[in-house]
């Protein structure tokens, strides 16, 4: 099942066009936008910044893609981002040796393990108790911020830890570490769904849960796995965000990231109705959203209309992908062609 390479071209055409158009717009306004320079063996440039800043959204959107493919949704990712960052920072801040690699590894492990637990909780509510995903994850979405507040005791925890800083702001192999991590998770998700049968079973459950059950598909386990994966992705994103600002803010870390992630998935062509999904589409969707944010700065759009601008682009992409509109455009084109011939 070569979902990633056999992707119908038409499906990703408009998202790619949008991304390229946005990048060209940036380049027109800011010459040197595409320039990438090497400094101390590290790559720098606006494109690299987009990739780096988009990494958390991409991570969260990856998990969201698989959740949505099973007809679900995960609203709790923002809260998990906050909890994961809060846990890691608190552990590092409380340790006698915040700068040691051992402390950071321990903090990261605890944060990620707890993220897995949170994902398992969501999975339990959805898969076992059959609670509507939007409600089940809404519980953690609201309660999760509270948990993060409890962990940080209501403070913004600022830390100084060189090894921890690497996750969000360091470099590996000449690239920002966050890009390498996000790329690694993307590869992992692709491998998990392509090299195992998970992709087929996820789609099958998403398209027709009843038929899948009769075919012996363990939909409960699959649904569980996607929520756990989603929380893991959110947990990593949380570490990245906390590391980048060297602080944990229970209130604002990952705020509205679920919206960006859902948008990225939808822009990437995966239907909220579940079933067929595209990880590559999500990748492009996440970069569109990040490029939009960058564009707002380069073009110098007034902050007051930033959200309106974003909304317009998103509406345009969604409309371009709408089958109804595409059919209309096709008819229009063929009639004008006929008119030209006549």
């Amino acid at each position, binding site marked *: 099942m070569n979902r990633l390479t056999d992707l119908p071209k038409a499906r990703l055409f408009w998202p790619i066009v949008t991304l390229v158009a946005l990048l060209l717009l940036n380049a027109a306004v800011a010459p040197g936008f595409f320039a990438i320079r090497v400094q101390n063996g590290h790559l720098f440039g606006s494109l690299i910044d987009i990739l780096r800043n988009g990494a958390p959204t991409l991570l969260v959107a990856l998990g969201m893609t698989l959740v949505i493919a099973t007809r679900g949704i995960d609203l709790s990712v923002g809260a998990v981002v906050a909890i994961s960052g809060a846990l890691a920072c608190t552990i590092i801040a409380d340790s006698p040796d915040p700068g040691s690699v051992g402390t950071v590894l321990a903090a990261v492990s605890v944060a990620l393990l707890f993220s897995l637990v949170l994902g398992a909780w969501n999975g339990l509510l959805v898969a076992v108790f059959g609670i509507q995903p939007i409600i089940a994850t809404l519980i953690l979405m609201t309660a999760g911020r509270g948990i993060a507040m409890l962990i940080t005791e209501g403070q913004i925890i600022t830390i100084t830890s060189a090894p921890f800083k690497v996750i969000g702001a360091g470099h590996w192999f000449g690239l920002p570490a966050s890009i390498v991590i996000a790329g690694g998770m993307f590869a992992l998700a692709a491998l998990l769904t392509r090299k195992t*049968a998970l992709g087929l079973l996820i*789609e099958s459950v998403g398209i027709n849960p009843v*038929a899948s*059950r*009769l075919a*012996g598909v*363990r939909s409960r386990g699959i649904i569980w796995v996607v929520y756990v994966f989603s929380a893991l992705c959110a947990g990593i994103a949380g570490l990245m965000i906390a590391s980048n600002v060297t602080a944990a803010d229970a209130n604002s870390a990952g705020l509205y990231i679920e919206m960006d992630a859902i948008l990225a998935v939808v822009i990437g062509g995966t239907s909220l109705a579940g079933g067929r999904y595209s990880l590559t589409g999500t990748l492009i969707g996440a970069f569109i959203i990040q490029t939009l944010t960058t564009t707002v700065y380069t073009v110098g759009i007034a902050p007051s209309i930033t959200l309106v601008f974003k909304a317009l682009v998103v509406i345009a992409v969604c409309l371009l992908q709408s089958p109804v509109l595409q059919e209309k455009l096709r008819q229009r084109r063929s009639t004008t062609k006929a008119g030209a011939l006549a």
Partner: protein
Amino acid sequence: MTITPSTSRATDAPAPTGRPIIEMEDISISFPGVKALDSVSFRMFPGEVHSLMGENGAGKSTLIKALTGVYSIDSGTMSLGGEPLVISGPAQAQAAGISTVYQEVNLLPNLSVAENIMLGREPRRLGAIDWRTMRDRAGELLARLHLDIDPGSQLSSHSLAVQQLVAIARATDIDAKVLILDEPTSSLDADEVSELFRVIRGLKDDGVAILFVSHFLDQVYEISDRLTVLRNGALVGEYLTREILRIELVHKMIGKELATLESLENKTRAAAVEGETEEVPYLKAVGLGRKGSVEPTDLVIHEGEVVGLAGLLGSGRTEIARLITGADRADSGELFVRGTRKRLRTPRVALRDRIAYSSEDRKREGIVEELSVRDNIVLALQADRGWFRRISKRRQDELANSYISALGIRPANPDALVRNLSGGNQQKVLLARWLAVAPRLLVLDEPTRGIDVGAKAEIQKLVSSLADEGMAVVFISAELEEVLRLSHRIAVMRDRRKVADLPNEDVTVGEIMGLIASGAEA
């Protein structure tokens, strides 16, 4: 399959007096991976009943949907009463005088009969609905069909047959020149069918052109004047009903000999006689039941045996099938597989014991529409192996291709989306899915419903040969002839309990019918 060129239609059926009201010329429609209609021509005359005949996948539904504006045509022309007809949607087709009554009655059961008939065309006075005119108008339409019911009564209080007639009343109010009846008789009993036919004849006398689709040959011969036969998306020919023998018609529909069916019957009967053995049955249910679904029931199924389950809808025939396959959980009784007590809590557990259940609801509980034929075929096998032991791409292709050719799945393309296949081919894909897990007990719930002669015969043949190879098969069908033809033993269900379990020796349809009916209300 190739269509011989001698099947041009003009020579076969002379036109009656008058011009055709509908003429469709060289219509082609394609879906991804499927050519659903290939240059098909079709015409209808006023005051005539025209039957559209063909197997599943022949293109009947596609042709109807082209005519009613549901699908747009890729090429070809259509005309209505000599004027070119371009339809871009169902509403436009209706406005042009082409009305359709679908197999599943598309009405609102909680509204009144009058509201249903006039829905969307309510007479108005001063902006508000004029209820009295509405009721009177509905009453007239009902009277025209000689249907004596209160227009103010709730639709759901009437039988399905009456609802069907209400749907026709609704269709004919729109000044219909052409009325399309898609499988109108599939859920009607004999009396209701003759009532429907009376109405059809009345409409015919009024000059309406009627397109009739049914899998029942008797009804086709009784009601229609003209036949058009399609096969694999191509036109086979147009014939006058009185001039074509049934055997010829069936030949034209399936394009192959029917002898297989008769030989099959003899073989099954022979096997039934020697089938009596003392070995441990593959499955034995003792007092298996579920509240509100089926009373405690005993059932024994041996390997190499086809057990037919006969009974009306809701008699417990599907319900007991779901209990022995883990689709539903039993709340009483015991179940033994090869003599060992088992609890089949889920279909997955049942599949582990090589028990597969093919649901009667192909669309909701069978196919996974948006996935390919290949994915659908390997699904159960892959689910059984778990996620990590993925079936390799090459093995998937081998499996899919071998079943596509063994069962004659059309189109023979493993990448085609199952959604785009005809009902019969979807059913074959499902059979392939279950056969791929090598079941020892295969429970087939209505595997031949809504599919016609050819595909039916193939599936029946398959069931028989599977049993010959030692598989235990439970076969459920509303068609008693089919149950009798295939089964070694027949369990009759009535009112949620088993009322008889008899070897299929000299049993007649009449006897089974008696068992099903006795004690039941009217």
